[in-house]
């Protein structure tokens, strides 16, 4: 068979568990030899399932997995040229350190002297040379993890799979092990696939990051790509701190948010298109402003390295103004929240503290404004028009205005649209037409964009100023006049798209 350029190819792999839920939903991924790839996502996003499919502990429901160009989708784990480092180490408690590490070699009948040599080498690699005959239960978590890594790399696998290997270690230990893993990856030259929920770890270690959410890949890219150019709100929100705002792309290279037009470097969104923008808190320039909005020269005289004129980058950039409402010291920098004149809240990071109450001016350079296409502009559901001015969608019946009866017949399939800010959430789930749970919350500067997952697994998106927590049970109401109905056949394609999105989002 022709050798593939990729060591691992995951092609359209889906994994469905007994309850019908998709742990993986059409996942595709290519890994080049020698890469350090991290699969990153919150718990339950399917990252571990993907790793287990590659290791062979789980068989994909559909799709195939190629290792070095040959199909291993149904190959049992012991025949695959991959080894795994398990989250809880999974060391054999009845064997000592040496026998644990030698386990794979013994199975392959490697000669005793060769075996001893290789075990010593592997233990040296993880700095555990003096522990050969120690009982594994007597080792600390970090030491056990080292033994687990030695046990896996001694078999010289083509791919090393690591399932949250540092999750059980304390912070300091984790940082040390991260560096060691990086070095080890460089020395060994084998491909690492690393699963973690820790975005910092992913940014530190990886050549490439695969961000996953609810069984789907959200974005694949280098750490800098993922950080600087997130492709959607989820990625922007999950990785690092971010300000995510509703915006309108006025035309190419010009985007409007916070009531102002900003130059940016993005093109191809069309004119007057609704988009999301992401601005990293450390990319916001901030200065203490005088009445004209220029840098205030009077204050900060005591701070030697604060030069008011240096705070404002040269050039014609759009400035906006606000007042600091909170400031937290984070060790190296201060994390401040600034409320703009238009009522948007901005997270800003700076080495200088601007005390709450300070009037400040801010600007963002065009290259630091990341524009993202909106995943949807309103809620769209497939529905059926019913007698007595009712419409059925999301497995419930909703009242609609009487005049609708002129345009639709009972039993007719319709497309239902509801704006995000027209969905009414009730504390008491009994009060709503439909009950659901707060599934995901995104702060958009001046409001929250909330995903409500109904008990039937459908998603409703809501813009609100009320504060909810993930997991809150809510009742959902929509006033009849805010339910827009459209003829089904006209927008059939978009309805399908929406069905897709309700699974993914």
């Amino acid at each position: 068979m022709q050798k593939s350029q990729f060591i691992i190819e995951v092609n359209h792999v889906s994994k469905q568990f007994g309850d019908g839920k998709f742990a993986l939903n059409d996942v595709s991924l290519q890994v080049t030899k020698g890469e350090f790839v991290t699969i990153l996502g919150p718990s339950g996003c399917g990252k571990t399932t993907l790793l287990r499919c590659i290791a062979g502990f789980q068989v994909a429901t559909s799709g195939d997995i190629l290792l070095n160009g040959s199909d291993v989708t149904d190959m049992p784990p012991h025949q695959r040229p991959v080894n795994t480092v398990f989250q809880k180490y999974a060391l054999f408690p009845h064997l000592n350190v040496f026998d644990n590490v030698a386990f794979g070699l013994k199975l392959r009948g490697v000669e005793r002297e060769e075996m001893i040599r290789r075990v010593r080498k592997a233990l040296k690699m993880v700095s555990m040379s003096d522990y050969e005959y120690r009982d594994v239960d007597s080792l600390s978590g970090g030491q056990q993890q080292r033994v687990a890594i030695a046990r896996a790399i001694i078999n010289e696998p083509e791919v090393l799979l690591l399932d949250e290997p540092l999750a059980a270690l304390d912070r300091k230990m984790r940082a040390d092990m991260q560096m060691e893993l990086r070095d080890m990856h460089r020395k060994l030259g084998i491909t690492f696939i690393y699963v973690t929920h820790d975005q910092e770890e992913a940014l530190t270690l990886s050549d490439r990051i695969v961000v996953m959410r609810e069984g789907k890949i959200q974005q694949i890219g280098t750490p800098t790509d993922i950080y600087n150019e997130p492709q959607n709100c989820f990625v922007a929100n999950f990785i690092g701190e971010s300000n995510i705002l509703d915006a309108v792309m006025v035309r190419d290279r010009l985007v409007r948010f916070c009531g102002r037009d900003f130059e940016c470097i993005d093109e191809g969104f069309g004119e007057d298109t609704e988009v999301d923008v992401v601005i990293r808190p450390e990319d916001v320039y901030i200065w203490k402003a005088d009445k004209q909005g220029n840098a205030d020269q009077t204050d900060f005289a005591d701070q030697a390295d604060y030069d008011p004129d240096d705070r404002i980058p040269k050039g014609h950039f759009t400035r906006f103004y606000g007042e600091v409402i909170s400031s937290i010291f984070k060790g190296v920098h201060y994390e401040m929240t600034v409320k703009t004149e238009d009522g948007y809240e901005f997270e800003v990071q700076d080495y200088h503290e601007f005390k709450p109450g300070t009037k400040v001016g801010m600007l963002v350079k065009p290259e630091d404004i990341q524009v993202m296409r909106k995943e949807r502009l309103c809620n769209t559901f497939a529905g059926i028009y019913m007698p007595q001015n009712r419409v059925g969608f999301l497995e419930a019946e909703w009242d609609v205005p009487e005049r609708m009866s002129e345009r639709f017949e009972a039993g007719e399939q319709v497309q239902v649209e509801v704006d995000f800010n027209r969905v009414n959430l009730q504390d008491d789930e009994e009060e709503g037409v439909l009950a659901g749970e707060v599934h995901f919350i995104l702060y958009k500067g001046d409001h929250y964009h909330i995903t409500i997952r109904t008990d039937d697994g459908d998603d409703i998106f809501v813009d609100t100023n009320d504060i909810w927590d993930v997991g809150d049970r809510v009742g959902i109401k929509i006033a009849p006049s805010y339910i827009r109905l459209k003829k089904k056949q006209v927008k059939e394609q978009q309805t399908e798209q929406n069905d897709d999105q309700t699974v993914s989002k």
Partner: protein
Amino acid sequence: MIRLFQNRRSWAAPYILFLVLLVVLPLVLIAYYAFTDAAGHFTIANFVQFFTKQEAVNTFIYSIAIAVITTLICLLLGYPAAYIMAMRSFSTPQVMAMLFILPMWINFLLRTIATVELFHMFGIPLGEGALLFGMVYDFLPFMIYPIYNTLQKMDVSLLEAAHDLGANRVQTFTKVVFPLSMPGIYSGIVMVFMPTVSTFAISELLTHNKITLFGSLIQRSFGEGGIAMWNYGAALSLIMLIIIGATSFFGQDDTEAEQKGGLL
């Protein structure tokens, strides 16, 4: 804190009383009777009597042999049963466990009598075979349950790790599952061996007293021999106690050795 501790300690009082009256005291009495004659003078004649009587020693050896064979059969039948129960993800593992435990809901004497009737019904003669059958039937759950427990608690990721490192199913079993289930096997062995070596009711019922086990010997010394035989019976009891004690210690020692990796 101290008061609470003292309170807690006082909760043990009923049990200590129970222990002293019903365990320690009888043991002391057995030892006393074993080393005295009918008149209450110290003697080792009871032991000499046992070891010089060929018939008694034979019965003793035969009893141990029967117990060993029963234990082995229980292990051979019980391990696979426990393994299947623990490894197959039955939708209701409790139900499976219940099926094995269910026979124990019926008093074992009743069960043994029922077994006798079964043998009669099918016209199978009673004897050594019937004895072994009855013993295995009665004590099999004691073997299955501890093994099932250790297997069920075994961390699945250990099996996955073995697979991952290149072990096929058989190798995973011999190199990981079996060594790790040794504690369960030992307690199973002890729990089957101890009652089988001392039983008398099963042999009496299932062989119509044709085969005498060591337990029966003791029982007869007390039951039929009258007060004159008590000292001899006590000596026999003491010998059996030592045997049983030895097996449980043997099990414990080996469990520790096993955990230190002595098996591979």
